[in-house]
Every structure is written in C-alpha cells, then in structure tokens.
C-alpha cells in the first residue's frame, strides 16, 4: 500500500473506493465476446425459420416476400407423413425403453454400493463417445448376422443404445436428492417393496422420469446416422430430410419442415428442463 493514509483506514476504504472505479474503467471485452458468440450459436438455428417464410426458392438476400405456402404444401406429402409416423413410433418406444433401463440403473448407482458399480456406470456412458459411424456400421453388421432385416425395430434397438446415457444421467440426478428415510418410513408403516416403490419413490422421481422421456424422445427424433444405416426402406424423419436435401426445388419445403422440427425439439426440451429442475427442487 503506497497511499499516504494510515493503514487501517486504507484497508477499510480500498474495497469501497477501488471496485466501482475499476469496473467503470474496464471495457467489458468478455461480455462483447459472449454476445458475439451467442450470435454465432443462434445464426444457423434462426436462419431456417427466417427463410421458410421467404417467397422464393433461393436462400439468399434480399428476401422476396412473406408466404406460408411452403408450410401448406407439407401436409400433402405422403412419404413425409409416413416418415413422421415412423419417427414418432421410434421416438416413443425408444423413450420408454431407455428411460426404464435408465431408471433402474440410476437407482442402483445412487442407492447401492456394489462391486462393479463404477465399471457399469462407465459402460452405460460409453455410447456418448463412440463415433456414430462406427456404432452404425457395427450394428448393421450385427443385426444382419442375427437375421434381423433393417427396419424400425433395428433403429429402435440402436436408438435405445445412444439414448441410454442421457436417461441414466437425468435419472441419477433425480435420485441424488431423494431422501432415503421416506422409503424406510413407508417400510416401517407396513408397505411392501413394490408398494413403496409405486406409492413413495415413483411419485417423487416422476418429474425426472418425464424429463428423461422427453430428452430421450428428442435424441431419437433428431438422430440421423444410425437411422440412415438401420432403417432400410422405412425412413425416419431425418433420413427423409437427408433424401430431400439433394433436390434444390424441394429446398423451401425442407426449410419449412426443418423449422417445425426445430420448434418441436426446443419446446419439448424446454418442458423437459422444467421437469428436471422441479425434480431437483422437490427433494
């Protein structure tokens, strides 16, 4: 301290004097960078909806005019509707299967200490770090060897595999704050194991389950590479979009479809986020 004031006084004054002055002097580089970065992140996501209303087939400035016709045309495309139905089936079954597997596994990881727990925890996270093309090609080879023709079933089997890590980590955080004594109390009051699970455990982790269902559904709904390899002649929505991307004439319709999917994904996951937070708070 090389200020002329006495030491205790300086100590008392410095925080009060220094802080505001420093802040007003420094240009907020990081804030500016953060905002620029957000623009970079949102640019491609907002572009599709923007041009889906554009009255022209070329995606470029200047924009032509406002139209809803690209959306209106979507309803008349049978292959698109079939792909949508396929995706809904695959997504729903995947969500149910991955969430049930994840529910039990997460319960085991949080509640019990057992040999091989860490190994098992690491194993179920593995699908996150294997390159998609390797998962896809190796599963195709396996299913063909087992005599399973590429179909929605094989896509579901693959999607459960990639969605499982998401289900497990969401369910783990739902069980993390779960108060053990509630279950013990239920036991002591004479409930059976299944009764306790159904009437005590399940209601408390329900928001986590909803969050997991929504997230795993979205993972499956958006997944492309596995579906591309495993769907055979039953395309899911992303596989259908892939087939449309090549035709410039179909571009505006693809944009409209893509915008609807973006909206659906974001809405679903915001709802999931809401439930996930509720599950963390409730316990």
């Amino acid at each position, binding site marked *: 301290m090389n200020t002329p004031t006495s030491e205790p006084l300086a100590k008392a004054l410095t925080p009060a004097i220094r802080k505001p002055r420093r802040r007003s002097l420094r240009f*907020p580089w*990081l*804030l500016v*960078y*953060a905002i620029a*970065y957000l623009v970079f*992140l949102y*640019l*491609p*996501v907002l*572009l*599709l909806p923007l*041009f889906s209303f554009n009255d022209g087939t070329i*995606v*470029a*400035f*200047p924009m032509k005019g406002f139209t809803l016709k690209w959306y209106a045309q979507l309803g008349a495309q049978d292959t698109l509707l079939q792909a949508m139905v396929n995706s809904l089936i695959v997504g729903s079954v995947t969500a149910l299967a991955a969430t049930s*597997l*994840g529910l*039990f*596994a997460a319960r*085991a990881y949080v*509640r*019990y*200490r*057992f*040999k*091989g727990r860490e190994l*098992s925890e690491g*194993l*179920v996270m*593995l*699908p996150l*770090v*294997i*390159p*998609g*093309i*390797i*998962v896809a*090609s*190796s599963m195709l*080879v*396996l299913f063909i*060897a087992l005599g399973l023709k590429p179909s929605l079933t094989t896509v579901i089997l693959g999607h459960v*595999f990639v969605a499982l890590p998401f289900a497990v980590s969401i369910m783990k955080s739902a069980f993390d704050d779960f108060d053990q004594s509630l279950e013990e109390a239920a036991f002591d009051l004479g409930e059976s194991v299944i009764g306790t699970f159904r009437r005590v455990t399940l209601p408390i982790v329900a928001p986590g389950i909803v969050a997991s269902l929504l997230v795993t559904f979205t993972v499956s*709904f*958006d997944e492309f*590479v596995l579906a591309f390899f495993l769907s055979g002649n039953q395309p899911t929505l992303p596989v259908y*979009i*892939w087939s449309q*991307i090549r035709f410039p004439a179909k571009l505006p319709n693809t944009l409209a479809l*893509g915008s609807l*999917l*973006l909206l659906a*994904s*974001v809405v*679903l*996951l*915001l709802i999931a986020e809401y439930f996930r937070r509720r599950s963390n708070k409730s316990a």
Partner: protein
Amino acid sequence: MAGFLRTEAGKGLALSAPASLYVGLLVAAPLGILVAYSFWTQTYVEIDKTPSWANYLEAATDPLVRHLMLRSILIAAAVTAATVALAYPIAYFIAFRTHRKTLWLLLITIPFWSSYLLRVFSWKLILGFNGVMNSALISLGMIDEPLTFLLYNEFAVVLTLAHAWAPFAILPIYVSLQKIDRSLLEAATDLGCSKLERFVRVTLPLTVPGIIAASLIIFIPTVGDYVTPSLVGGSQGKMVANLIQVQFGPANNWPLGATLSLVAMASVGFVAVLFVILATALGRRIR
C-alpha cells in the same frame, strides 16, 4: 440366489444389469462380428470366409485410405482446438463475470436441442456460393463477387463442427472454472502476480481436467463424423466416415468397411491416449 438378491450388492447388480448388459452386448457383439468380417474378403456378391489379412493390407497400403484417415484426425484436431479456444472465454465469462449463470448456460444450450442434421444443413445454406453470407455481403456492398473459400473445404467443416460441439466444450470447462477455490486467485494477486500471470499459472492449470474432458468428448466423435463432411466438406473435406459409408453402401464391400471402422477406432483411441498423456504433463509443467 434369492439370498444374494437381498443383499446390497445383489440389489445393485440386479437393478443395473439390464442397462449395462444392453450396452455391453451392443458394444461387444458388433465389435466381435466386425473383427470377424475384417478378416473375410468380398468376392462379387459372395463373402469369402477364409481368414486373410487382405483388408488390413489394403487399408495400410491404399494411399486414399491413409490420406483420409490422416485428414480426419487433423480436421478433428483442428475442430477440437478451435472449439476449446472459442469456448474458453465464454466459460470464463459465465464462471467469473456474470451473476446470471443459469440464464447464460440455458442460452448456450438451447440451439443444441435442435437437430444436428438441420444445423449442418443450415451452415451449408449460409456458406454457399449464392448463399446467405455472400448475398448479404454483396447487398451491403462489402464485396463485389461471391467468396469461394467459404464452402466445400476443410474450413467449412471446422467451422460447422466448432459450432456443433460448442456446449460440449463450454460445459466441462465452466465446471472446472467454477470449482476453483477463489482464495487461490486472491493469494496469487496478493503475492504479486499480474492478471496474466495469475491466469497462466493458476487458473489455466486448474482447468486442465476440464479442457481434457472437453477435448476428448469432441475429438473422438468428430473423427467419425459423417454428416458434416458430406454436406459442407466437398471433395476437399471428405473424411474417413464417408469412405466407411461407401463400403457399407454403394461399394458393398462390408469386410473392407469393417476393417476401416476398426482401424479408425484404433487410431482414435491411440491419438486420444497420447493427447491425455501430453496434456496432463503440460498441465503439470506450467505450474
């Protein structure tokens, strides 16, 4: 058996078994078959099941394979470096310079809840010759002719993937920054460190685990990425996944495809291990 199931270990194993068996089987079984396939050979429509090293020889000697493999690893490394470098300041900003952490984290993750395929497709539209970027720059009078270096090259692949992986870099780095004991930073300042010194010698080394986690989670899947090189890579930006897909698709040479998958996986694993060793050593060195 029934007695074991009532113990702590038994219950834990029984509950986690379905999930770990599912993943375990779907990793091990395809891998086993992939290995088997890699020693077989394709002869027209039939598969010759006499074991041979032919595919591995082809993978090792074909210049195209070597070229694509090397390029995939280099592109993945560039993507990893770019993503982590771009993400670090954001993670730093959220950890130290704002009180609305939850809002910022939410803002950063929302775009990634949309389909990956569509985001890549959107980049293709932005970067194209007659695309959004060029037409916007021309409308604004900043350029006269469309820029051609934007699409169908390595640059486009790196940019698109640096976008696609952003939250996977931001989140682990943010967590490791958040974990830093603030009194360490105060101590560094009190002991006379300048801000830069404090960052390089205290903050940065303490976030090495976060950087390693982010790098691995980006690098490994990127080597095998299929969508981005196909859509924005052009012929200069093709990667090993495209070659693998060709073997399983149009070329119909599954044994070679299987071999390439295995070789790719082994190379990724090798580079990843090497990276972890180097980064850990470097992190210790700075301190």
